[in-house]
Each structure stands twice: as C-alpha cells, then as structure tokens.
C-alpha cells in the first residue's frame, strides 16, 4: 500500500524515469508542505510574506528535484501548516505516504523591512528533528534563504555538503565563427542571477573560481596572446597573474585560495607552473618534453593531478605540489585529459578522448575504477559539485552550440543547466557563508 501511494505521487510529479527503475538506488522521498507565515505582511516591493513563502517552497522543491538523491513530494497548498505547526508537525500522514523526511518552515516580516526565514527538517519514521536553520535576509534575497533551506534538507538526509547556495562560473557565448564572443559569467547553481564579469573584451575561456567564489581566474585573449587574469566578483576589478608576455592558460586555485597552478609555454614545451594568487614569480614544476596542462590541486594542497602527453598520448599524472614524485595514474586505452580532484579528495574527474569522441567520467584518486558518465560525442571539462556527488560539464551539440549539463555519479542521465546564453567551461564553487 505504501509503495503504491508513493508511485502514484511520483507519477503525478512527472518523475525522472530512473527514479522508478529497478536496480537504481532509490531517492529519499521528502515532503515539502508550503512554508508558513505568522501573518501575511505586505512588503515594500508589492510582494507579501505569504507570496514569498509560496515561491520559496517551490524553489526548494525545484532545488531538491535537481538532485538524484532526494525526491520531493509537493508543494501542495492543501498540506499547509499553520505557523505553530511548523515546529510541531504531525508525522502519521507522511508515514502513510512512504515519506522519509519532512521540511517545514516560515517566512516572517521584521520591523526593519527584512525577512526571517526559518527551516526545519524531520525524520518522519523516527518523528524527530534532523536540523534547523534560520536566516535574516533582505526581502529581495529570499532566494538565497530558500537555497539555504534546500541545503539543510540535502545535508540532513544525505550527510553530504550542500550544493544549493553555490555559484557556477562559465563562459557565456554568443555569435559564431570569427564573430563569436566568449565572456566570463556566473550564475547561482540553479541557473538564475546571471552576472557577466568580463564586459570589455570579446574572448575568455576556462574560468575557475576561488574557493569562496570571490575571485575568478581565467584565460584571457585580450591583446592576442592567451594569458591568465583574475577578476574580483564584487567589483569587476581585473589584473594579470603574471607580468611577462608568455602564453599562459589553464589556471586552477588551491583549496586555500593562496596558490594558482597553471600551464605556461617554455619554447615549444608546455609545463605546469605555480604562483601565488596575490602575485609573485612563477615556479616551474614540470620539465618533461611535451604538453603538461590542466593541473588540479588535491583538497589538502599537497598534490597536483595533471594531464601530460609525455608518453605519446594524453594521460593523467600525479605529483607533489613542489613538482617532485611525478607518476602516471592512467594506463587504459584512449586519452585522459582535464582532471579535477574532488572536494572530498576521494575521486578524480576526467575527460576521455577515444574513437567515439569526448566523454566525461571519474575514477578513484589512485587511478582505479574509471567510469564513464556521459554518452558524448562532445562532452568535456568535468568539474565537481561541492558535494563530490555530482559533476558539471560542457556538451557541444551537433549544431556546434555549447550547453552546460550536470550529472550525478550513479549513472543517471545528465540534465541541462539552463543559462540565458550558450554556455561552456563550467566550474562549480564551494558553499559561501
């Protein structure tokens, strides 16, 4: 009976097919009744606390539906809780529906015009609270508070770091051929609030976020020679990482934000270098003939994984952060490129190049257990979600247009992240407080 009701609810919500596939890990069903409000207060912008409570509820459901691990039921107006019930919900009716977790909350107007948003997550079977969080935000920033509620629900149920109040930087593209422009942009992880960071120049690639998403390092073509620049997210101020005129590209921050690893040309050789993100001289870490590129620090900052074609084909290598102890990680057929170390340190994402094109995947950090996650033929540039359970990547369509997708590690179909323009080269930030 329980099962039948769950499936009924799932069908109504147009569930992803895989949620019902036998053999797939089942998503935890979470009920999201509408957020409450103690009294409906009109706000300066013409909205009201009740209207925002409803919008926030829908946003939380959308956030959680975008994960493969939580499966939201609702929101449904008839499940409305009164304000006092938010902290004392009844559980039997949710148990009857096979619901595992419950999220309740409220939106309350403050005397200073701001809003208090509170969220509570409960274990339905045990009837106990898993976590609660409260936020005071400007009325216009209710989305951030809703994302924080989504994060509370996700972390409470899965135990993994949340991914909702995070940013994705990417390259916003328009035009085609020689007239194509590529600008560094940033969106919230749900694709909203797009911000363009490089307005002046026409061409930039490979933006990479600093750990707290305050700065983006990217490869600029301003002046005709690719070189690494940094732009402050808050005020758009830009500076070059290096003072020389050599070709440099493929920047990547250490997890403390203090260092940037990157590639720089040395004659016909491309080698990995490292420099302080605040400036200073570059230190050369690799000298092997060939192309060494796409460095990525381990989360503890002790090691760097990178791509090298020193053996004849591109393969992944690991070295200590001072360049010592270089050893090869991948030996399988095909080319392995563009590695990124996961935030939890356990895995390495990569792009595999073979006869059937470019696909993305991941392996354990020791190089074993490689698994391909996308169908190609033009998927590349996998970057980790802060949860280490999902990847964001770029897919080039048959028409040559680029779009951003995200995929969970359990092998479900990738889903598109909607952006206002064509997008490429995504990179996902950590959670900012």
């Amino acid at each position, binding site marked *: 009976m329980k099962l039948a009701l769950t499936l009924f609810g799932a069908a109504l919500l147009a569930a992803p097919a895989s949620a019902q596939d036998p053999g797939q890990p089942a998503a935890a069903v979470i009920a999201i009744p509408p957020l409450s409000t103690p009294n409906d207060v009109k706000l300066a912008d013409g909205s009201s606390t009740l209207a925002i409570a409803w919008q926030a509820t829908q946003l939380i459901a959308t956030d959680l539906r975008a994960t493969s691990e939580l499966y939201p039921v609702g929101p449904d107006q008839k499940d409305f809780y009164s304000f006092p019930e938010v902290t004392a919900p009844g559980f039997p009716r949710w148990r009857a529906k096979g619901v595992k977790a419950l999220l309740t909350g409220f939106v309350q107007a403050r005397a200073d015009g701001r809003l208090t948003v509170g969220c509570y997550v409960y274990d339905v079977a045990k009837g106990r609270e898993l976590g609660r969080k409260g936020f005071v935000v400007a009325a216009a920033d209710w989305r951030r508070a809703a994302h924080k509620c989504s994060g509370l629900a996700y972390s409470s149920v899965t135990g993994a770091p949340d991914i909702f109040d995070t940013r994705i930087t990417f390259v916003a593209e328009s035009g085609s*051929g*020689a007239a*194509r422009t*590529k600008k560094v942009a940033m969106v919230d992880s749900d694709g909203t609030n797009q911000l363009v960071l490089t307005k002046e120049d026409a*061409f930039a*690639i*490979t933006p990479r976020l600093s750990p707290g998403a305050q700065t983006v390092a990217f*490869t600029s*073509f301003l002046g*005709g*020679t*690719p070189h690494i620049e940094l732009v402050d997210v808050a005020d758009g101020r830009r500076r070059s990482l290096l003072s020389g005129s050599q*070709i440099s*590209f*493929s920047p990547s921050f250490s997890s403390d934000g203090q260092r940037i690893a990157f*590639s720089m*040309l040395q*004659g*016909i050789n*491309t080698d990995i270098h490292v420099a302080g993100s605040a400036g200073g001289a570059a230190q050369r870490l690799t000298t092997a003939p060939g*192309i060494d*590129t*796409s460095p990525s620090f381990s989360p503890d900052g002790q090691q760097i994984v990178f*791509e090298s*074609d020193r053996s004849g084909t*591109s393969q992944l290598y690991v070295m200590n952060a001072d360049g010592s102890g270089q050893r090869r990680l991948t030996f399988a057929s095909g080319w392995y*490129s*563009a590695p990124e170390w996961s935030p939890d340190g356990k895995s390495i994402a990569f*792009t595999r*190049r073979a006869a059937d*094109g*470019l696909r993305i995947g991941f392996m354990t950090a020791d190089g074993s257990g490689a698994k391909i996650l996308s169908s190609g*033929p*033009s998927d*590349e*540039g996998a970057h980790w979600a802060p949860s280490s359970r999902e990847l964001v990547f770029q897919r*080039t369509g048959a028409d*040559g247009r680029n779009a951003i997708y995200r995929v969970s590690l359990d092998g479900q179909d990738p889903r598109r992240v909607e952006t206002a323009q064509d997008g490429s*080269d995504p990179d996902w930030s950590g959670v900012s407080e």
Partner: protein
Amino acid sequence: MIARLAIAAAVIAALATPGAAQVRRGSVAAAPQPPKLFGIDLLRQEFRIATGTDTVFFGGSSAGLGTPAKAALRAQAAWLRHHPEVVVSIEGHAEAGDTRDHALAVGARRAQEVRDYLILFGVPPAQLTATSWGKERVAVAGTSEAAFAANRRVQVILVRLAI
C-alpha cells in the same frame, strides 16, 4: 642565434629559385626599403598571391611540419624578408576533437614551430609573434575527420605595418 643565421644564409644561397635570387637583392643588410603606403589588406592579398597560401596544415596532434607546409613557409619567409615593415601574427589552431587546454597547447606549439621555421629562413624574429587560439576559432564546424583536419592549422596573418 648566430648558428641559425649561418644555416639560414647557407640555405638561402643553396636555393636556386627566382624567389631566392630576389631575396639576395632585397636582403636585410641592404638599404631600407621605402615605406609602403598602401593598406594592410592590399598587402595581405599580395602575400597570398605571392606565397600561394597563408595557412599550413598538420596531422593528428602533431606539430611537425610536412613537405607542403615547409614549401609554403619558405615562400612566406622569402616574401616577409622583402617586407620588413610588416608585423606578423602566427596563429596556431587545433581540432575540435581535442580537449580545450590541450588544444591551446597544441596550437601554441604549432605556431612556435612555424615561427622557428620562418626565422630559420631569414625572417627577423622581431617581425614574428606566435600565439594560439586552441580550438576556439574553428575554420570548419563539425566532428568529421575532414572538419578536424581543416582545423589543424597555422595561419600567418599580416597584422600591421611596423612603421
């Protein structure tokens, strides 16, 4: 550098083509030529007509110069030695089937190989800058081998007059 120039001089001397003869007359050591007063577009056209092509192609992920590429570059070097007033940008490209960072490095390597070859044949280094577009400016869209091959290229572009 001295060794390279010596090799270049020897190679130039060994070339018995009409182009090489012109080179000797208009070599760098001779009196500076009068400034050319026509536009860069006209020069570009002249460059293409005189040298056959401004683009050379590569195989696979290689930056090695094949026989047709070398012949084209020797013709370009001969023309460029006559036009010390022109600043040249050597722009390397890679195929869309490559990954983004690797493609940028491959393009840079190809451009550097072309620059070295032009210098070997007597073009002053100061006239030549090398850069890479990676796979960001494909000449032919698509994922066919023909499209990939068309994008594995270096284009020698006359950028501006140095004077």
